[in-house]
């Protein structure tokens, strides 16, 4: 067993070193394609998380001026209660909105806020989501109203943009993953070709098929693994340093899950590539 391990390790490393240009190309292609896959997965998860947070509750928010008078507030509230397209409304005081802002904004931004700067707001649920626009147009120009926002519409637009981005990422990644597999396959094929004399002698003297195969299998496996480790680094860096709003910020579990997918995919690509090469070109 020890003889075997030493042999397999030595052969694998020799093969990788001999074919180093091809190896680098294969590893980098795996790394780039899996980084794209990882990024697409992160994007999908944070978008889902953000829209889940935003969609529960308010569909239309009427932000009042911080300086709005009691009569202006009462006026808006009256109109809302009589409007048939509005199902119900909740009034948030300046203090409540301030508390919420503290939760949503990063400390660097929320620390400059004061309660008196904050608008008070009416959070309303329209009977049908599309009525959010009617509410918006009715109240945007009323005295004391700062502005009206309908987050759902924005979420929808954002989701569409994210979906397109995701499809583009995944399509690119699919093409790159295919070429990575072919590159690995080709590297292994060259390694097999370079060692055809050794292989024929090994068969002759009775080396077992697995003994002959394993160095090539580990070679492909290692290329996939190294490529995916680079991709894991890239995905983690993206997650750590790319500035996102709190709603988008994913927890560590989501990152770990994404990295696990990336690792498994890399190892799978390497193994599949070398398995095909071995089946087709290593006659054992």
């Amino acid at each position: 067993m020890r003889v075997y391990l030493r042999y397999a390790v030595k052969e694998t490393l020799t093969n990788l070193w001999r074919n180093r240009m091809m190896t680098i190309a294969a590893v980098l292609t795996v790394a780039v394609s899996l980084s794209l896959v990882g990024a697409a997965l992160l994007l999908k998860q944070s978008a889902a998380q953000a829209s889940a947070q935003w969609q529960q509750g308010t569909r239309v928010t009427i932000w009042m001026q911080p300086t709005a008078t009691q009569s202006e507030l009462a006026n808006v509230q009256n109109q809302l209660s009589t409007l048939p397209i509005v199902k119900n409304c909740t009034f948030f005081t300046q203090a409540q909105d301030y508390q919420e802002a503290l939760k949503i904004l990063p400390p660097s931004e929320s620390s400059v806020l004061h309660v008196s700067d904050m608008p008070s707001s009416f959070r309303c649920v329209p009977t049908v989501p599309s009525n959010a626009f009617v509410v918006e147009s009715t109240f945007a120009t009323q005295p004391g109203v700062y502005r009206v926002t309908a987050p759902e519409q924005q979420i929808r637009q954002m989701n569409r943009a994210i979906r397109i981005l995701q499809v583009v990422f995944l399509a690119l990644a699919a093409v790159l993953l295919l070429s990575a597999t072919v590159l690995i396959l080709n590297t292994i094929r060259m390694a097999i070709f370079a060692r055809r004399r050794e292989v024929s002698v090994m068969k002759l003297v009775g080396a077992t098929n697995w003994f002959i195969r394993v160095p090539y299998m580990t070679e492909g496996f290692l290329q996939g693994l190294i490529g995916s480790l680079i991709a894991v680094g890239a995905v983690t860096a993206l997650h750590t340093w790319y500035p996102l709003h709190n709603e988008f910020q994913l927890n560590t579990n989501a990152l770990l899950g994404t990295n696990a997918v990336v690792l498994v995919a890399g190892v799978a690509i390497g193994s599949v590539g070398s398995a095909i090469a071995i089946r087709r070109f290593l006659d054992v």
Partner: protein
Amino acid sequence: MIRFENVSKTYKNGTPALRDVTVNIDKGEFVFLVGASGSGKTTFLRLLLREELPDKGRILEAGRDIGTLSSWRVPYLRRNIGCVFQDFRLLPNKSVFDNVAFALEVIGRPRSTVESQVPQILDLVGLADKARNLPGELSGGEQQRVAVARAFVNRPLILLADEPTGNLDPTNSEVIMALLERINRTGTTVVMATHDKALVDRMRRRVIELDHGEVVRDQARGVYGIDEPVIR
């Protein structure tokens, strides 16, 4: 030790290589396989190595039908068979020592075995002083001795030789034959395919002659070709 029972083999292109061959070779025998090119000698050896399977008939080695052997056991069969070829088949980038050691390493023998067996076998073939040379630095005769050392280092039960003297001058052929005889005396069954008439005639060993895939002669102390007209 080796038994062919009504073995036939036809290649995919339709050429019959062996036709209804029945041969029995005992343990410790030295057998010459003679016949023109294309008479089936090489197919005979390839069948013994299970590089091919017979279309009809059975081949028994050490009492076991090798046709029913599952493919993962084939390497273990081959560990009992040493092979020598006309073109030596040495690895050009490995030293003489490493070429012989390779045969032990790839079947998982521990380093201690390699270190004790390889010098011993190189001594036997008379190349102890060339252990560190590359095959390219050796003469043809010496290279073939390395190949014999590699084939025998694992002490196989059977040694197959396919025209081992085909590329050698008479003097070197003598050395190889002396070596094969010596190996045969240790109890190893030797099967040698050859074209070398003088050699077969002088050795006076069992001769099996193949012609178009059929055994036309099986003679206990035979010569190369008794019926062959002398060409002047």
